[in-house]
């Protein structure tokens, strides 16, 4: 063996430095561990990380304008939109060339769609012109300014050219601005007109209602979790099965069941009318509003609150309560000062789980939320699957992700993430 006191690195028995020797010995272990997690890592990479990254990129991607109208973008470089004058003939010529090529490749409608988000009506200018411009001979058919304006009077509108110039970069903040009810105006970002603002309202509503749902889950779930943790094992198991029972039915079925229960001609209203608590003419509106969403989502998310609370409460030794009482604390004081603080990690874990699930929910709000009880995720779904504005959907998703991470950070600052126990 080497003499430790000598200077230089410690050597292993065969004379190699001990550190390298150790690293070699560990490398095999590390490789094996990596191999074991490789399938999961690959799976997560392919099905989660890459799509999320792709989504984030889409929210700023604006390559389409440069890809489809390269000459036009270049020709507009020297044009000053503030002049409020139409650009020079060269820009029109460039556009004619770009448009003819694009029309043949059927890409002109894609750029039209992109620009139409920023300036409604541009789509039809592109589409209508595209159909006819295919027949042009763009080498010799100048001058183009008059011909293009003649083809569609939209080309004579300075605003259209401004839009092309404003959105000619390969990245855009347009989607993100739109996602916070703003737009790029002449003097940079500005608020959208009042009657188009929606996303901030929806984001705040989503947060507010998710918080309400989280608190309802705490209120309803805490006693159940306490009962679960304090009943004898056999009864607790039965109760646990009851808690998990909703997972055995489809989410859609559960939500539809709430519809049948809550609607104005539904079970709850019928019962209340029959008892005489509610007048037949003034049946309660329990669905297609915020209340409907809160009720149905509280029910659906309740197990996610109960389970972490239960697993934390299980670890709280009942002697703490006895100790507190032996020291003179009433039942309430013993609970509030001794039991409750120890159950906070469970509440924290449940709340984070429920809140994050709630923020991203869209099926239930869509079915029972009417107009006042829908979430921002419903708009994201709408843009992804119906309107086709994936960039905006992606921007909204990215903002939602950022807000959740921010709240997570705030939670860590206030409560401490170490205080979260999932089991």
């Amino acid at each position, binding site marked *: 063996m080497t003499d430790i006191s000598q200077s230089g690195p410690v050597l292993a028995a065969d004379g190699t430095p001990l550190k390298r020797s150790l690293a070699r010995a560990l490398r095999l272990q590390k490789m094996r561990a990596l191999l074991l997690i490789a399938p999961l890592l690959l799976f997560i990479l392919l099905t989660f990380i890459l799509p999320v990254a792709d989504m984030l990129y889409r929210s700023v991607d604006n390559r389409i304008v440069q890809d489809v109208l390269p000459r036009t973008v270049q020709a507009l470089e020297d044009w000053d939109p503030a002049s409020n004058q139409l650009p020079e003939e060269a820009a029109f010529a460039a556009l004619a060339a770009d448009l003819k090529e694009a029309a043949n490749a*059927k890409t002109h409608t894609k750029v039209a769609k992109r620009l*139409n988000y920023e300036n*409604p009506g541009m789509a039809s200018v592109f589409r209508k012109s595209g159909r006819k411009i295919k027949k042009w001979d763009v080498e010799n058919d100048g001058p183009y300014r008059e011909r293009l304006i003649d083809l569609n009077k939209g080309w004579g509108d300075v605003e259209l050219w401004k839009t092309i110039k404003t959105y000619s970069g390969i990245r855009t903040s347009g989607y993100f601005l739109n996602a916070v009810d703003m737009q790029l105006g002449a003097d940079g970002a500005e608020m959208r007109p009042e*009657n188009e603002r*929606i996303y901030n*309202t929806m984001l705040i509503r989503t947060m507010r209602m998710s918080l309400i749902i989280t608190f309802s889950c705490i209120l309803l779930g805490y006693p159940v979790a306490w009962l679960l943790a304090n009943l004898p094992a056999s009864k607790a198991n039965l109760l646990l099965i009851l808690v998990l029972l909703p997972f055995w039915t489809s989410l859609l079925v559960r939500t539809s069941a709430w519809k049948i229960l809550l609607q104005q001609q539904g079970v709850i209203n019928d019962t209340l009318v029959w008892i005489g608590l509610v007048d037949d003419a003034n049946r309660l509106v329990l669905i297609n509003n915020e209340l409907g969403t809160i009720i149905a989502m509280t029910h659906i998310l309740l197990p996610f609150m109960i389970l972490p609370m239960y697993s934390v409460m299980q670890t709280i030794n009942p002697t703490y309560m006895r100790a507190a009482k032996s020291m003179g604390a009433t039942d309430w004081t013993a609970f509030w000062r001794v039991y409750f603080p120890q159950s906070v990690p469970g509440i924290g874990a449940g709340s984070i789980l429920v809140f994050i699930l709630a923020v991203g929910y869209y099926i239930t709000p869509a079915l029972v939320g009417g*107009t006042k009880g829908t979430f921002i995720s419903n708009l994201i779904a*709408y843009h992804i699957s119906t309107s*086709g504005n994936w960039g905006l959907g992606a921007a909204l998703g990215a903002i939602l992700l950022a807000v959740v991470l921010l709240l997570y950070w705030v939670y860590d600052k206030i409560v401490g993430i170490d205080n979260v126990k999932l089991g």
Partner: protein
Amino acid sequence: MKLSKLSALAVTTALCAPSAFAEEMANELTLVSWGGAYENSQHKAYVEPYLAANPDVKITWSQSAAEAVAKIRAMNEAGNVTWDLVDVVASDSMRLCDEGLAEELDHDGILAAAPDGTSATDDFGDLIVSDCFVPQIVYSTTFGYRTDLIDQPDTVCAIFDTEKYPGKRSLQKRPIDNMEWALYCDGVAKDDIYDVLGTDEGVAQALAKLDTIKDDVVWWTAGAETPQLLADGEVVMGSTFNGRLFSAIAEQGQPIGMLWDMQSFDLDGWIIPAGLPADRRARVLDFLKFATDTQRLADQAKYISYGPARASSAPLVGKHADLGIDMAPHMPTDPANASNVHVYDYEWWADNRDDLDAKFQAWLAK
């Protein structure tokens, strides 16, 4: 979902593999439709007779038409189109065609002429709203009302009259049709509707009119909702597709009446996704020619109250396959029903949809 698509593709390619010649036809066909009674009518009228003539072919239905645009776009980006023939509404066909996601068709070249020799283009007439579109049916979005709960309305403006017709009403959760009805009932002449709607004031006017009934509206997204809401008594009147109302009234005997006034015509038809392999495309064209001929379109009306898109099919419309009632009076195109119709402007909406959607959603959220 992705996996099933992949496996579907694998199956298709495996089956296609032997086909060396372009005219060789694949034996697998994936049709996309809307499910329910409508898909059933297509199955009975087109698919069953086609399968009888071509026993080797296997036809699979997918009920994804509602998300057709988004899905075809995603498939196209992934370079893996697994659908062969997709049933879409006219406006979706225009979007898909514009974006190059649907194949442009030579209608006279690939479709059957009418029995009297009229070319397909003439027989379908104006209904060919896009180069990619083969129309099948004319349907309308119109109103049904509870005959036992309110008086019989005779104009679409009854939806804005909550005094004479108290109770909730259901409307589709989108600006299309609702904005037009609102302007019409606010005194705008039918021909001026889109001119007015093209201005900010016009949008404000329409939304203000809708504001008067906002608290009384249940918004729907799926066609089955209104018939259910009417049956439950949750709403006293509501808009939906006329075929849904027909089945609630004639097949289920619900106390519901039809209000045809200002019904909004729309079209439904086929598109072929762009970029199909030659053998699959050959099979699709073969099926499409068969499924859109005069007799097949007329047959479909035996099962559902949607009007055939071919002029030559109209005289052949007969009786309901099970109920034995005459189907012609239940067609949206029947002269008695079509005395006052709203002609929905595809072009205008294609340009203004995004803008009005934003304003409409903002209004809804308020």
